[in-house]
């Protein structure tokens, strides 16, 4: 099996209105492939169709047209669900159960015996960072962040080959976010493929090898994250200097179309290509400035995101 | 700063107090207003007092989710309550005989029982109660009601017994005999049905027949019927005893020219009397002669006769 997820021409129309049915296209001819063993980032603004796609993959929604396969099996085949995991966006579970009971319940659905369930429940709840004192509290008393952790724990109960995480970081505080980030990285290193939707770009940069960006239900871009970022115009560099005034560098900046910023620590000069670095350094030295640093300024993911999703 | 916090707190406390007081006053007001409103309701005309029976049982049948039995029970309880209330609310000076309940105007009794038995045609206690009480209100409805029971439960000999009883009370002995005859043909009918049919033909008006009648009633039917039958049996005993005492009183008067001064004077004579079933007169420790309810018989020296305070009918017979 080459691709762990294969999406082919997937479209989904929602009908709205009661009398006059209007069709709203939430997903429009999406085709996508995910290779095993990686963390795949599924990006897009609100309403771009990320959750719709994942719900179709999970069999919660039925596509208007198109097909999709997970682990080589059609998404209509429920038996494939033995080997996948899913944590919905803002997950919500039976609030009359405790976290431990919920994990046990799902464990039973997978046919785990009670000793194994007990073991697995403790293991998973520890893994997602839930304090042991909360394990036997009813979920109605859980905060959003705690529910998010329970959601992650239940998605891993069957030790899945691929896990689908819909906005796994929402509702978490910065510490929690870092913990979950580590957990996701750990999943990859243990061989689990992670398909995660998010709009938190720092998580994508920290975790994802490949991404797909959705825009209004259509695929705007897909590929390796590095490629997508490099692929854009030429690489820019930032040169930080001190000991001179901005005025001294202005002639150079004007001639090479570089940008000049004043910073508390000195001057920052941004050139548009590698070849211009030498000329810039010459100009700095010529006016008696002291070089602090030279660093590449990647076109940020944010810029890419804004460009591809057209949100700005 | 802390002053405003304190002010806020005392305001909260004050509003809580105001609320508590308002609730207290309100509760009192509700209590008094409710009583006042209840007392000053426009009275319903006398004729409409019993008018709250707005549903006919037979129309409910099939439309009470299979709870026909329960609704029948409700009508049954109402029928008991209804007559009970009539007794309790009767003017204290009104004398009510079990043989004629018409002064109470219990006009809804039949509809209640009719509804109960429409909903549950096998409701034997209702038929038994109806057969006991309805003849004292309207014999025609009593017969109709019991015939309805027979139509629904043609194999139940008890209903024929009730019908025979009603006819017997009305002194319609031929019809009573026919009812007993029909009843005796039903499966499981005891021999006394046949015997009663024979009594009706030969000896219908006798005390023996009456005794047999009530004895059988007392071991059938509902509690109400049983109590009534037991009362009747005691009444029959009292009647017999009053007759025996009066006979001895007139013997004494004939012999001595005057009435006895005390009933104790005829105790030896009474000792020789054989009552029905070989029973004897009952006496208290003080030697007073008492009726079946253990109340002493009262001597009326002027008429030189006795009557029982427990059974007013025994005196009225004279």
């Amino acid at each position: 099996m080459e691709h762990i997820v294969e999406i082919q021409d997937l479209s989904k129309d929602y009908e709205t209105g009661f009398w006059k049915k209007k069709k709203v296209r939430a997903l429009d001819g999406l085709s996508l492939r995910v290779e095993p063993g990686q963390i795949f980032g599924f990006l897009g603004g609100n309403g771009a169709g990320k959750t719709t796609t994942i719900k179709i993959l999970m069999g919660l929604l039925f596509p208007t047209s198109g097909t999709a396969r997970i682990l080589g099996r059609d998404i209509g085949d429920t038996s494939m669900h033995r080997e996948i995991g899913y944590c919905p966006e803002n997950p919500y579970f039976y609030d009359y159960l405790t976290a431990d009971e919920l994990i046990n319940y799902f464990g039973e659905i997978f046919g785990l015996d009670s000793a194994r369930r007990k073991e697995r429940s403790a293991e998973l709840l520890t893994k997602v960072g839930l304090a042991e004192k909360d394990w036997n509290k009813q979920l109605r008393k859980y905060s959003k962040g705690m529910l998010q952790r329970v959601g992650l724990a239940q998605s891993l109960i069957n030790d899945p080959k691929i896990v689908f995480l819909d906005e796994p970081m929402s509702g978490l505080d910065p510490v929690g976010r870092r913990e979950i980030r580590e957990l996701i990285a750990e999943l990859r290193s243990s061989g689990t493929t992670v398909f995660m939707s998010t709009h938190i770009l720092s998580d994508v940069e920290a975790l994802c090898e490949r991404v797909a960006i959705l825009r209004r239900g259509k695929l705007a871009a897909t590929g390796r994250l590095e490629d997508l970022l490099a692929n854009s115009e030429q690489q820019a560099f930032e040169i930080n200097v001190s000991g001179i005034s901005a005025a001294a560098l202005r002639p150079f900046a004007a001639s090479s179309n570089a940008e000049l910023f004043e910073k508390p620590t000195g001057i920052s000069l941004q050139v548009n290509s590698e070849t211009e670095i030498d000329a810039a350094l010459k100009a700095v030295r010529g006016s008696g400035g002291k070089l602090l640093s030279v660093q590449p300024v990647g076109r940020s993911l944010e810029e890419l995101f804004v460009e591809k999703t057209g949100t700005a | 700063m802390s002053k405003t916090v304190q002010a806020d707190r005392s305001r909260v406390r004050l509003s809580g107090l105001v609320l508590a007081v308002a609730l207290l006053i309100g509760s009192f007001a509700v209590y008094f207003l409710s009583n006042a409103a209840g007392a000053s309701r426009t009275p319903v005309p006398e004729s409409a007092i019993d008018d709250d029976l707005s549903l006919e049982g037979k129309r409910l049948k099939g439309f009470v989710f299979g709870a026909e039995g329960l609704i029948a029970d409700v009508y049954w309880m109402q029928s008991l309550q209804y007559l009970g209330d009539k007794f309790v609310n009767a003017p204290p000076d009104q004398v009510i005989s079990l043989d004629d309940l018409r002064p109470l105007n219990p006009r809804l009794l039949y509809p209640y029982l009719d509804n109960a038995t429409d909903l549950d045609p096998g409701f034997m206690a209702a038929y038994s109660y109806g057969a006991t009480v309805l003849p004292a209100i309207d014999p025609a409805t009593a017969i109709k009601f019991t015939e309805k029971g027979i139509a629904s439960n043609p194999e139940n000999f008890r209903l024929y017994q009730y019908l025979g009883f009603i006819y017997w009370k009305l002194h319609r002995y031929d019809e009573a005999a026919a009812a007993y005859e029909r009843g005796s043909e039903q499966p499981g009918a005891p021999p006394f049905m046949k015997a009663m049919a024979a009594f009706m033909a030969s000896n219908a008006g006798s005390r023996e027949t009456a005794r047999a009648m009530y004895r059988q009633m007392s071991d059938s039917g509902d509690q109400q019927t049983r109590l009534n039958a037991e009362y009747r049996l005691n009444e029959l005993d009292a009647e017999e005893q009053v007759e025996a005492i009066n006979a001895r009183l007139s013997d004494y008067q004939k012999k001595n020219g005057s009435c006895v001064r005390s009933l104790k004077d005829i105790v030896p004579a009474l000792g020789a009397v054989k009552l029905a079933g070989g029973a004897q007169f009952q006496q208290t420790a003080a030697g007073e002669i008492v009726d079946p309810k253990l109340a002493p018989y009262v001597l009326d020296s002027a008429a030189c006769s006795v009557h029982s305070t427990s059974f007013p009918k025994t005196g009225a017979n004279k």
Partner: protein
Amino acid sequence: MRRSSNTNYLTQIFVIAKNAFREAVRDRILYNLVIFVLLLTGAAIFLGELTAGQEVRTIINLGLNAILLFGAFIAIFVGVGLVSKEIEKRTVYAIFAKPVTRSQFLVGKYLGLSLTLLVNTAVMGIGVTLALLYVGGGDRLASVWVAVFFVFLELCVLTAVAITFSSFSTPALSALFTFFIFVIGHFSSSLREFAAALGSAGAKAVFGTIYYIMPNLSLYGFRTQAAYGLLPDAAAVAAITGYTIVYIAILLSIANFIFSRRNFK
């Protein structure tokens, strides 16, 4: 460990049913038993006075009809929420990403509530039994339990109706529809007789159709008979049980047909 799990179709239904039962218990649905027991105790003590010695039949009538009434409330109001509450609260999302089909879920939830009703009905039956023994009606117990069984069957049908409506309608409307079916189901045989007695051919056809389409709930009425200590013959019990199973199977198939096509937005 990955594929060490061995389950079949019924295991998952059983697990879901068990959880639905647990939900009912945690939602304190069985608390209605307390009210029932109080009602029955009061009845056993006071009815003797009010009914002039007819307390045996009255306790049977009161107890059995209360079992139906309480049970119908649970069947309707819990039944319509069985599935729709899970959709509304989004608890279905995680379930259906597990190896659970829509039909397993539906049947499991249905059986869970049926189990709840079974426990509820049985405990109430025991309550009636004790009250009867107290007033000396022990000879009617067999009939009473037959009637309790029939009440349970009726509640199972009612639950199936509720779950079917809720598979495509809102809980409030489903409750209303189910209540209508409860009413019509009890009246349909009376209405048909009524139409047969004095209706036109058209009315006969309409009420005849209603009679066969609607659940014939008057079949389950054995409560008045139970008060007389009557017993149905075995063939009647078999026929009514068969009718119940077939009717529920049809309803659940319809519910499953609709539910399996639902999108969970």
